[in-house]
C-alpha cells in the first residue's frame, strides 16, 4: 500500500511543530525518517497513523483520503509503534500481542484459531515466543519494545510506522529488528537515531525544524554537508572495504 502526505501542517498552542510536509512512500518501500531531537519526526508519524487530524493538508492511503475513513478501517491498514507506551496493568506478553487483533474483532466476531496463529507467528517474528507467558512488568526495556512490535505485526498492517524502535535495544536486537522490518513485504516508515542504520533504508527523509528538508536514497542524502547543516556534526563518509557500503565516522560537534 502506498501512503502519501500532502502539505501537512500541525501546531499546538501556537507552536508550529510541522510545516508543509509532503511525502510519498511506495508500496513495500522502507523509508527512514531522520532528524535531530524535536525536529517533528514523532508528530509526522502520528499524523500519518491517523492519530491526529492535520490542521492543514491531508494523508492518503493509496488514493483514499484518511479523513474519510473510520479509525477501525485505518487500523486495518496502518499501525504505529510508539516510542514509549507503558502500562501498570498485570498483563502477559501474549495478551499484549493479541491486542493487535483488536481492529479485526468485534463484540460479535469472536477470537478464532486464525487469530491464535497470527499471534503465535508475531511472537516468533520478534523472538519472544519463549517469554509469551511472562508478565509485562518483568520485561526489560528492549523486550517491551519487541513486544510492541509484535503487537503491530499481529495487526498485519499494510503500512507499518515505527517511532525509533531500536531505542533501548542491545546491538543484536537492533540489527535483528531492522532486518525483520526490511524483509517485511509491506510499506515501512521508520524514524531512526542511528544514522548508520538509516543507510540500510530504501529511501530516507531528513526533518529539520518541522520541515522535511530532503528526501532520497541514503547515499545521496547523507552527505558531509547535510550532517554538518542539520545534525551539527563534522563527519567523514567512506566505503566499507568488505561490502562497499557507506559508513559514517562522526568526528566532533559543530
Amino acid at each position, binding site marked *: 500500500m502506498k501512503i502519501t502526505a500532502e502539505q501537512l501542517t500541525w501546531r499546538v498552542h501556537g507552536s508550529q*511543530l510541522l510545516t508543509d510536509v509532503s511525502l510519498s512512500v511506495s508500496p513495500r518501500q522502507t523509508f527512514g525518517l531522520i532528524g535531530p531531537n524535536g525536529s517533528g519526526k514523532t508528530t509526522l508519524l502520528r499524523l500519518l497513523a491517523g492519530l491526529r487530524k492535520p490542521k492543514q493538508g491531508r494523508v492518503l492511503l493509496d488514493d483514499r483520503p484518511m479523513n474519510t475513513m473510520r479509525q477501525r478501517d485505518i487500523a*486495518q491498514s496502518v499501525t504505529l509503534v510508539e516510542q514509549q507506551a507503558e502500562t501498570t496493568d498485570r*498483563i502477559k506478553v501474549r495478551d499484549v500481542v493479541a*491486542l493487535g487483533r483488536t481492529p479485526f474483532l468485534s*463484540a460479535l466476531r469472536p477470537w478464532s484459531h486464525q487469530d491464535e496463529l497470527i499471534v503465535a507467528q508475531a511472537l516468533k517474528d520478534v523472538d519472544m*515466543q519463549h517469554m509469551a507467558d511472562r508478565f509485562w512488568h518483568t520485561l526489560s526495556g528492549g523486550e517491551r519494545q519487541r513486544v510492541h512490535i509484535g503487537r503491530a505485526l499481529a495487526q498485519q498492517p499494510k503500512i507499518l510506522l515505527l517511532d525509533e524502535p531500536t531505542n533501548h535495544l542491545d546491538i543484536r536486537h537492533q540489527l535483528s529488528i531492522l532486518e525483520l522490518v526490511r524483509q517485511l513485504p509491506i510499506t515501512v516508515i521508520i524514524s531512526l537515531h542511528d544514522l548508520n542504520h538509516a543507510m540500510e533504508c530504501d529511501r530516507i527523509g531528513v526533518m529539520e525544524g518541522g520541515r522535511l528538508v530532503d528526501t532520497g536514497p541514503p547515499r545521496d542524502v547523507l552527505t558531509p554537508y547535510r550532517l554538518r547543516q542539520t545534525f551539527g556534526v563534522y563527519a567523514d563518509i567512506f566505503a566499507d572495504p568488505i561490502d562497499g557500503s557507506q559508513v559514517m565516522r562522526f568526528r566532533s560537534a559543530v
Partner: protein
Amino acid sequence: MPIALKRSSTEGFWWRWLWLTPLVLFIALMAGTAIGETSIPIETIFKVLANQLFGADYAVDRIDAGIIWNYRLSRAIVAACCGTGLALAGVVLQALLRNPLADPYLMGISAGASTGAVAVAVAGVGAGVITLSIGAFAGAGLAFGLVILLAHAASSGTGGGRGIQAAGAIILAGIAGSQLFNALTAFIITKSASAEQARGIMFWLLGNLSGVRWDNVWMAVPAALFGLIICLWHRRALDAFTFGTDSAASMGIAVRPVRGLLITTMALVTAIMVSMVGAIGFVGLVIPHAMRFIVGSRHTRLVPAAALAGAVFLIFSDILSRILVTGQVLPIGVITSLIGAPAFALILIRGTRTR
C-alpha cells in the same frame, strides 16, 4: 521451528465459569434474605417465593412473608445491583483514565448527589414535590456535567504528550468539582440544618438501604444490566486502552466517542445508584483491583468477575450492617470501608511482592 500454539484461554474462560454466576448470585440473594435480626429458615423463603412468583399456596406466617418479600429480598436485589454498577464504573474509569485510584465518585457524582439531597431535605428546594432521590440524581447530573465541561475546556487544543492530557484533565476537573459541591453541601447544612437533620443526612451519605422497596428494584436492575451490557460490548476497546489513548487509536478505537459513551454510561449508572442508596464508598475502587489480581486485567474476564464480586460483596456487607450491632442498622458504607480498606492494603502488599 514449529510455532508453539497455546490457547490464550481468555475466550474459553467464559463458558467454563459462566454457569456459576447465577448460582453464586442466587445463594448470595438467599443469604441476604434469610439472615437478619430475625433469622428465617430457607424453607420459609422458598415457600414465600413460590407463593409470590408461581401463585403457590403454602401456609406461611404473614409477618415472615412480609419481611421476606417486601423488605429483605428487594433490599438484597438493590444491594446486588449497586455493587455491580459501582464495581463496573470503577473498572471502566480505571481502564480509561489509566489511573489506579479512579473510582465512580471521581467525577463529582457523590458530591453532587449529596448537595442535591441536602438541598431537598434541608433547604426545602422543590417544596416537598421533589423526593430526596430525584434531588440527588439532579445534583449528580449537574456535577458530572460541570466536571466534563471543565475537563473539556482544560484539555481542548492540546496535542499528544503536551499540555494537560484528557485523562489527567478529567481527574483534576473531578477533584475541583467534588470540592465545590462538598463545600455547597457543608454550606447548606451549617446554614439551615438542625442537628437531627444533619445526622440523618450523614447517615444517608454513607449509604443506606433501609428505605429500599420494589419500585427501587425496577430502577436498579435495568441500570445495572445496562452498565454490564455496555461494558461487555466494549470489552476489547477497554483492553485496547492498556497502553494509553494513542495506542488504542492505532488499534482502531475511535477514542473520543468510545470514551465519552463509556464514561457517560457509568456516570449515569452511578448517579442512579447513589440517588437511591447514598454514596457507598470503596466498592468501586477495591473490587476492580481485587478482581484484576484474581482473574487478570483482560476485560473479557474482568468485567463479569467484577460485576459478580461487586454484587456479592454488597449483599454480604448489607447483611453485616444489619446484624453487627443488635437493634441498630449501620450505614453500609461503614462496612464496605471497614472491610475494603484492609483488603485493599492486603492486595497492595501481595501485589508488590509478586513483582
